[in-house]
């Protein structure tokens, strides 16, 4: 129950960085530097530092950690907009289940970035709408 309540709080991206970090800490997900340490279902070691782009900006993360963890460490709180009312959506279930973190990664729409591992040079884009299937892969 504790988990569900704090998750619901964390999903409210408008509550600001402090609120979310507190909630994440409540879940035991965050280290001192704001980087997620324990993931509910995935295990990952702090791999080598890699570069990737997020909405055109170059960011750094650790190879093998979920993309959402690298984004969170970089201060990114809004991961998606809701499909009908276009409200901001943030880190929520963290297990690839809730559709709150769907993003377009390397041209692939609706990637669950909370369970997709980071690789060097990935192109991560905030998705508007339901995502686009491109004719040429």
């Amino acid at each position, binding site marked *: 129950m504790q988990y569900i309540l704090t998750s619901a709080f964390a999903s409210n991206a408008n509550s600001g960085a402090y609120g979310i970090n507190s909630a994440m800490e409540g879940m035991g997900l965050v280290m001192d530097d704001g980087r997620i340490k324990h993931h509910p279902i995935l295990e990952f070691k702090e791999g080598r530092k890699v570069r990737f782009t997020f909405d055109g900006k170059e960011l750094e993360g650790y190879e093998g950690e979920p993309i959402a963890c690298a984004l969170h460490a970089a201060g990114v709180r809004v991961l998606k907009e809701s499909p009908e009312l276009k409200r901001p959506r943030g880190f929520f279930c963290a297990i690839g289940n809730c559709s709150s973190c769907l993003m377009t990664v390397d041209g*692939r729409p*609706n990637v669950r970035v909370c369970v997709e591992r980071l690789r060097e040079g990935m192109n991560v884009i905030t998705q508007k709408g*339901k*995502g*686009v*299937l491109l*004719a040429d892969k």
Partner: protein
Amino acid sequence: MKVIPMTWAKAVSSCSLDNLPKTADAVVIGGGVIGTSIAYHLAKKGFGRIALLERSYLASGSTGRCGAGVRQQWGTRLNCLLSIDSVRAFERMDDELNYSRSIEFKQGGYLLLAYTRREADQFKKNVLLQQELGIPVSLLTPLEAREIVPILSTDGVLLATFCPTDGHANPFHVTYAYASAGKRLGVDLHTFTEAHEILTESGKITGVKTNKGTISTNTVINAAGPYSGVVAQMVGLDIPFYPERHQILVTEPVDPVLGPMVMSFSRRFYCQQTPHGSFIMGMGDPKEKPGFSISGTWEFLVEMATEITKVLPPVGNLSVVRQWAGLYDMTPDAHPILGPTPCEGFYLACGFSGHGFMLAPVTGKLISEIVCDEEPSIDIHGLDLGRFERGELVIEPSVV
């Protein structure tokens, strides 16, 4: 304490307060799209008191499980004529039935792909027949097909045919649209009500016994989809008919990218994108044995994904949301059985062989005409039950 297991269906059924009428002028067995369409059309004609029996909820059987396609590109004159009429009905259905929502009829066309020489020859013949009947279909080269579906791989495609007025609709909405319009005209809808026995006296229908009581009637219409054979047995009638499982899946939604239903007969698949954005696709399995099973298999998931990512490669980037299965009601010639039977007052509207959804509007109209003793507005003499004994089958070459 002893816990009595109760299914959800039983729970809802026991909560139902509706009382079965003692008598009805007609009883329709089956609350799918065919049954609700028939009930609506009969009520519209003022046939009298009509009771519709559905053993589960509306559209719970083949209707709610179907691929929802509506096409006019058929290989026989009769199927073409029936589907032309149905397409016109789908086009104006929201208005005609005064439906508060939308049946989501999307006329993005049907793109049929020919992969074998034999299939290509058949398509050329079909197109001549279809054009003669006024269907706006054209033969396309693989590159022209790709202009209509940019995500299409033309590998192995010899030619294609395209009809822009084909499409697909939402089978739940169509059923509810018929049911609610019928209800406004006085149709009694009885869900969670199962026909157990059909009563006859000297070869004439006298009533229907259900789990909720008995209705006296002289007219019963069998619209029980894959269970039509079971219902026909209740009056001792054997119909050449068998149920066959077909599997289907749906993906997460993406922005609109696929206009038409894409289909191949030789490779036995079809795939469409709903207005919501989900892709719905299915595949026939030649190894499938007749039977009532509607379990899904993991093999289908693998085979379907393998096949569709060859034909529409970008679809490989989508996640599958769920898979399910439903039953085709197969006849030996893939045409429905429509009309009266040797048992007086017992009518058949079954055997649609996988295209009952698209034929529902015209079926409701024709069956209501036949039951009211009128000349059917389309000559469907060849679709009677007697054709099997007479050996006058009309084989449809274009089915998945």
